[in-house]
């Protein structure tokens, strides 16, 4: 497409800036001088995808290699898709404007299950066969990675290979192997996939594993087709976060994106071990970056971007051991440069006046906590390790400095939950409202606003709750109405998620390869952007499941057997199944488990190693 054609196309759609490219910071190489071209795809809109830190990091890691050129591509919005089909224009990458189908690799980051149909939609727009088995030698190798790759099975048939775990080293290794085999003349698609599975830790090639099923529909066994590839694929981590490449320069979007700011991780993993939380398990072992390194990385991005906001990323920022030291050094330069610092994911029990004074991003009057359950009994079941006193102390710290808006996140449908537990959600909010009026330092003349946001529980692979059934749709909706009926104060605002979306998410999260025909059919029917409520079509999904002979309840509402072979058992995420079983039992007994710093509970992730980790060394 030449510039004139591009202009006519782009000026005929909404927000053309999404498709323009040409951002400051994008990486341009001479395509005749590189040996491998990698299209990095985010299966959602530009605005969402450009905000993703993982993409920023991997874009940088691949482009560090002179002979690899990594470019970006996002899902075109629906109006653009219509025009593209009309004019027979394929999906292209932003940097070069070249069709994705011309690339050597097409990598998708799978951040949430609801993006699966958009992945297929993008393959279709690229004119690449949906199923890996149908792709010829000239087709790009389609790679998947990101959190959803921990159970890749529902989308396994559509990918040539998956990256399990952290990609900074693994992804360039994969591309280097490709270049080497091409140079040596040993490359064929099949030979490459076999070699990658055999030699690169973290690579899962689904076509090299056959699956058998039992009569009751559960998985019987996974069998590798070659003897020299691993029986289970162990995830990959980077051993030392301080030494792992991190971009000092980012691609600056011209249009407004969702999180348009400096974002730097302070570590990976979480010491807490909430029993529903997938991220808390699969990113173990807990490893930290040194404060000097975080400070340096933030500073470098500030200098190359001019961003006015900076955010530290972590599953639980206040658990970072050097949080005070780090915030002090950041503020020493961010204040004079008028850069504001925000700390998401603060835990109520470590929320202090000192931290508050430092990060009080002045404009923001809302403070957010996630108690996750209303009653202490249930918080113990999920291992939240948070007491109401902690929460009350934390909100009072916020009220002391004039804040009056509190946002509280909860989940409904945890194992063992009763209506009494649920009724405690609004009750807790009511008590926060009273706490405001009892606080002598509150800002006079202002009233509090407490928002409770309740989302249904979704059982996720590699969590202690991975075996637990999700409530049926009717039960989820009944509970939502019940919680609403317990709200008696107009200072309390109640939000809840679409239960239908959560139901489908559970199906996709715990699904196996037999879901492929349903996803294929969804793509055929034009499903895409399903993380956007306006595009989510639940009735359409029921229809598809019926047509493809799939019982969604088998995946969402069934209690998986503790010794059943799980669809994701082909993956080893570091944490052992034994540990998860132990944690599941403790949940049902109502027992909590200490956090990793108090006491190692032997999850098994320490076998992966890692610098600045709190785990005991493996003997």
């Amino acid at each position, binding site marked *: 497409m030449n510039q*004139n054609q591009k*202009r006519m196309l782009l000026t005929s759609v909404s927000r053309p*800036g999404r498709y*323009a*490219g040409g951002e*400051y910071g994008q990486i341009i190489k001479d395509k005749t001088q590189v040996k491998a071209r990698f299209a990095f795809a985010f299966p959602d809109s530009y605005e969402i995808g450009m905000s993703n830190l993982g993409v920023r990091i991997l874009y940088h890691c691949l482009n560090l290699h002179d002979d690899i050129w990594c470019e970006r591509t996002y899902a075109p919005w629906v109006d653009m898709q219509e025009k593209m089909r009309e004019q027979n224009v394929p999906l292209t990458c932003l940097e070069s404007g070249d069709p994705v189908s011309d690339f050597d690799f097409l990598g998708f980051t799978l951040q949430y299950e609801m993006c699966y149909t958009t992945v297929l939609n993008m393959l279709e727009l690229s004119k690449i066969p949906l199923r890996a088995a149908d792709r010829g030698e000239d087709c790009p190798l389609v790679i998947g990675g990101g959190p959803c790759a921990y159970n890749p099975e529902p989308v396994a048939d559509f990918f040539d290979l998956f990256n399990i775990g952290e990609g900074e080293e693994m992804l360039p290794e994969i591309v280097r192997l490709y270049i080497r085999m091409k140079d040596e003349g040993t490359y064929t698609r099949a030979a490459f996939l076999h070699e990658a599975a055999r030699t690169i830790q973290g690579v899962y090639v689904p076509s090299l594993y056959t699956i058998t099923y039992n009569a009751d529909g559960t998985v019987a066994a996974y069998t590798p087709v070659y003897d020299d590839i691993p029986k289970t694929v162990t995830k990959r981590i980077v051993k030392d976060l301080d030494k792992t490449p991190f971009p000092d320069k980012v691609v*600056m979007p011209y249009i*407004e994106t969702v999180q348009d700011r400096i974002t730097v991780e302070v570590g990976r993993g979480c010491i807490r071990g909430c029993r529903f939380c997938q991220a808390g398990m699969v990113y173990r072992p807990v490893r930290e970056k040194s404060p000097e390194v975080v400070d340096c990385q933030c500073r470098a991005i500030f*200098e190359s971007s001019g961003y006015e906001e900076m955010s530290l990323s972590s599953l639980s920022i206040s658990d970072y051991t050097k949080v005070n030291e780090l915030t002090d050094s950041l503020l020493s330069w961010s204040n004079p440069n008028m850069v504001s610092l925000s700390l998401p994911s603060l835990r109520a029990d470590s929320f202090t006046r000192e931290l508050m004074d430092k990060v009080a991003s*002045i404009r923001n009057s809302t403070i957010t906590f996630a108690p996750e359950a209303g009653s202490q009994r249930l918080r113990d079941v999920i291992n939240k390790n948070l007491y109401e006193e902690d929460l009350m102390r934390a909100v009072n710290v916020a009220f002391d400095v004039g804040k009056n808006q509190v946002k509280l996140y909860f989940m409904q449908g945890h194992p063992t939950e009763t209506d009494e537990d649920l009724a405690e959600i609004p009750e807790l909010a009511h008590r926060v409202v009273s706490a405001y009026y009892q606080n002598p330092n509150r800002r006079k003349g202002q009233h509090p606003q407490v928002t409770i946001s309740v989302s249904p529980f979704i059982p996720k692979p590699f969590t202690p709750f991975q075996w637990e059934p999700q409530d049926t749709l009717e039960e989820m909706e009944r509970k939502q109405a019940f919680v609403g009926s317990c709200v008696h104060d107009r200072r309390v605002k109640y939000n809840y998620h679409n239960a239908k979306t959560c139901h489908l998410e559970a199906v996709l999260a715990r699904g196996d390869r037999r879901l492929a025909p349903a996803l294929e059919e969804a793509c055929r029917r034009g499903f895409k952007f399903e993380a956007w409520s306006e595009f989510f079509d639940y009735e359409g999904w029921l229809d598809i499941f019926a047509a493809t002979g799939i019982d969604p309840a088998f995946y969402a509402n069934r209690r998986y057997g503790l010794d059943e072979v799980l669809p994701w058992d082909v993956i080893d995420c570091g944490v052992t199944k034994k540990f998860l079983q132990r944690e599941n039992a403790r949940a049902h007994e109502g027992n909590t488990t200490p956090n990793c710093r108090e006491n190692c509970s032997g999850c098994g992730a320490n076998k992966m190693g890692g610098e600045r980790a709190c785990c005991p060394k493996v003997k």
Partner: protein
Amino acid sequence: MLSQGKVNRISKFDREKLDAPITVRVVFQKTGNLQYFSHLDLQRTWQRVLVRASIPMWYTQGFNPHSKITFGVPLPVGSEGMEEMVDLRIDRQITPAEIKAQLNAELTSEMQVSEVYIPTTAFSDIAWGTYQMTVKTPGDPIDNAAAINKIFAPDAEPIIMTKRSKSGDKEVNILPMIHSVKAVAADGLIKIRATLRAGNTENLNPEYLIKAMRDRLGILPEDGSTEEVWYRILRIGFHDEKGVAVGKWFR
């Protein structure tokens, strides 16, 4: 602290404070891919460009300090500009040449600064903007150019169009907002130079001319293939009511 690659950059904190803040005008181009970004996007971009270029911006005092930047006439999405302008308020010693160099190091080739100077004109002086339009359409370019000249001539029939404004849609005759339109045929294309009302009080988006050509002359058919049918718009400068240039050549 200077980071790598910022060779020409002196930190703003190392510059001497001025007695009072002054205004400088920056003239830049907005071409290529940048035509797809809105004026709002441009404003946000410049806030960040100025920070990473370490331009010593003056900040308003008070609770929520912010720098002051004022843009000339917004360029519509889909048009490129050769002489876009932004006025900055700075409060430390820095030369126009340094501003230009520091900014250009932080901008892509599609948005380079051509001039920095102390302005003696105001954006409110702007009355007319001049556009260079290139049109590719089926038919004989010579005939088409003649027809275009005819419909936009001062004594032509009124061209009534629906103009969108904050107070709702309005039917207006766009002819009085056209100073001059001159179309010629060249290399199979039609090249048009159009001077149109520009500024805060009255502004004519050059797309109206395209629409008028489409409605009246049937050129640039919307269902045509994009290889055969396209147009581009480039804004090249501004004039005040007396015909004196506002911008690069007038200071």
